[in-house]
């Protein structure tokens, strides 16, 4: 076992000598984190531009636009009808609010007016959110109309001036808005932005999987150098060689994850000390499983290019099927196929800890699968490994 540790230390030493490898292994997680921070850090509010074609240009359309503009995060962009059509045609915009020319006139006459959403397909995710916000603003306007009309009909013929009715309606609505019958309270349970909770597990698992390719190359490189055969003429046995290489791969995957987790802990404050430790344990077990798969590839591949390609294909396959960047719905075919991906279990474990606030005990099932893959993978790789064709 001592010799296995020497193999690990030697691998680490070689890793530190290779500047490109070192940069890839250590700096890339930091750069990724910086990008994550730039993209998501402190910005969790929805922000969008609401494209509006105002063919009415009268009092109520102006009021609607003013109210829309007051919504936090929404900026109204006024377009002509032809501009809007062109942009929709080119897919530069996916959804536009059209206010028809008779909008104010219709409302004043007491008839029902209609606004139009012109959209491509379902309007896209941003378009759907915008539409929902615009509907909310229209709902408020409808409520005002309802109250105003009700008030007018109640006070009709009592000699009260129109101005006074308008002031009373306004006061009533302001009071109602300040003390609504059904209110919504916001409870902040942590400073963690949702984007980070959603994507951090995926980024972590992706980095651990990169180490799969690197560990796949480790033995092939040793063979190319001629040192593999030489090592096997020393007292080192094949199992010690395997354990040594395996441990160095685990260490490499774990260190990359550790960097990401520490930075996330310090900057995004998404962990408690306990959940941080739990995430480290998951990283370690996942790194072991990925390293064991890398060892199988290393035992099969005959060239460094071959090992790299098999590793990359494995990584992409597992990232895509494992719900790394999007959550796979239960019961779908993708979810069933995704069971063969290590990422499925790693993501499940990380999301349980990071997004759901669970404990290590809640992740026992996915961790057992990952640990099983690590042990079985290591045994399989040893059984199929040959230093030279026909050799030990």
């Amino acid at each position: 076992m001592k010799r296995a540790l020497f193999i690990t230390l030697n691998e680490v030493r070689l890793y530190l000598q290779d500047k490109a490898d070192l940069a890839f292994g250590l700096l890339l997680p930091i750069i990724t984190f910086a990008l994550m921070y730039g993209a998501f850090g402190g910005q969790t509010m929805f922000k969008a531009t609401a494209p509006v074609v105002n063919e009415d240009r009268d009092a109520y359309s102006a009021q609607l636009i003013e109210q829309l503009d007051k919504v936090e995060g929404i900026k109204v962009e006024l377009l002509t009808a032809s501009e809007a059509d062109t942009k929709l045609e080119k897919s530069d915009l996916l959804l536009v609010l059209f206010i028809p020319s008779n909008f104010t006139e219709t409302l004043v006459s007491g008839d029902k007016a209609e606004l139009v959403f012109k959209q491509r397909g379902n309007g896209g995710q941003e378009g759907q959110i915008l539409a929902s916000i615009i509907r909310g603003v229209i709902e408020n306007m409808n409520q005002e109309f309802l109250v105003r009309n009700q008030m007018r009909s109640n006070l009709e013929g009592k000699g009260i001036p129109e101005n006074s009715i308008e002031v009373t309606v306004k006061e009533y609505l302001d009071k109602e808005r300040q003390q609504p019958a059904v209110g919504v309270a916001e409870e902040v349970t942590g400073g963690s932005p949702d984007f980070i909770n959603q994507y951090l597990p995926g980024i972590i698992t992706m980095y651990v999987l990169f180490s799969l390719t690197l560990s796949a190359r480790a033995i092939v490189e040793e063979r190319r150098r001629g040192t593999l055969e030489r090592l096997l003429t020393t007292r080192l046995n094949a199992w010690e060689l395997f354990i040594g290489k395996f441990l160095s791969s685990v260490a490499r995957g774990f260190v990359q994850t550790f960097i990401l987790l520490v930075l996330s802990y310090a900057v995004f404050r998404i962990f408690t000390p306990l959940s941080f430790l739990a995430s480290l344990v998951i990283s370690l077990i996942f790194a072991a499983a990925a390293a064991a798969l890398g060892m199988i590839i290393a035992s099969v591949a005959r060239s460094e290019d071959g090992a790299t390609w098999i590793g990359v294909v494995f990584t992409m396959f597992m990232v895509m099927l494992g719900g790394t960047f999007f959550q796979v719905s239960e019961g779908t075919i993708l979810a069933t196929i995704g069971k063969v991906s290590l990422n499925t279990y790693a993501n499940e474990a990380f999301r349980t800890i990071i997004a759901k606030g669970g404990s290590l005990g809640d992740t026992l099932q996915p961790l057992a699968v990952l640990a099983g893959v690590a042990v079985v993978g290591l045994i399989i790789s040893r059984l199929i490994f040959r230093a030279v064709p026909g050799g030990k």
Partner: protein
Amino acid sequence: MAEEFLVVKDLHKSFNEFKAVNGVSFSINKGEIFGLLGPNGAGKTTTIRMLSTVLQSDSGDITIGGHSVRNEAEAVRNIIGVCPQDLALYEDLSALDNMVFFGRMAGMGGKEAHEQAMTNLKLMGLVERAKGKVAKFSGGMKRRINLAIALMGHPQLLFLDEPTVGIDPQSRNNIYENILGLQKKGMTILYTTHYMEEADRLCQRVAIMDGGQIISMDTPYHLKSQIGSPEKVTLEDVFLKLTGRSLRD
């Protein structure tokens, strides 16, 4: 009678239909330098791989220092050192780090490995470059490091597979002197080479292999005397007479 340190009996190894080694038998006495000669593809390297426990034979027996290679591979690995035909070094590490690492693999303690590494580097005339990266060494220096590593762990039997390929006369001469020095200290050496004058100079006995078989085995002197006056013919003449002049793959 000389003590036989390595005994090979009726060794066979095939790769699919190709018989790489086909009934090879020989023995090497303790303290002897034994040359294994042959054209490319003769089966020399496959034989060394079987002797050094990397490859398992299909049949036949190999005993080294009284230990069976098949049944006591670990004991065999404790007493052998291998200098492979191709350089087997970590080019990104220093000469010293390479040697200490292989010393640890050979079962040496840290201090002992460091001391022997320095001794071997001195022997090879490389002590000044101990901390230099191997990648920056010349071909001859790398060859000497390759040999120095094989000596880590105090082996009793050394396999030298073409240790002087592609190096200048100075480095080659240094290697010859070291090999003869090791023999004086009682080391047994199995030596393969394509340079016949090298085998003539260093080896007490040589075996000439072709087509996976040993076609002749004797002292260089006796082999030469089979085709003429040993003073006039060379070992290369014997080699070409026995293996023919046709080109090999």
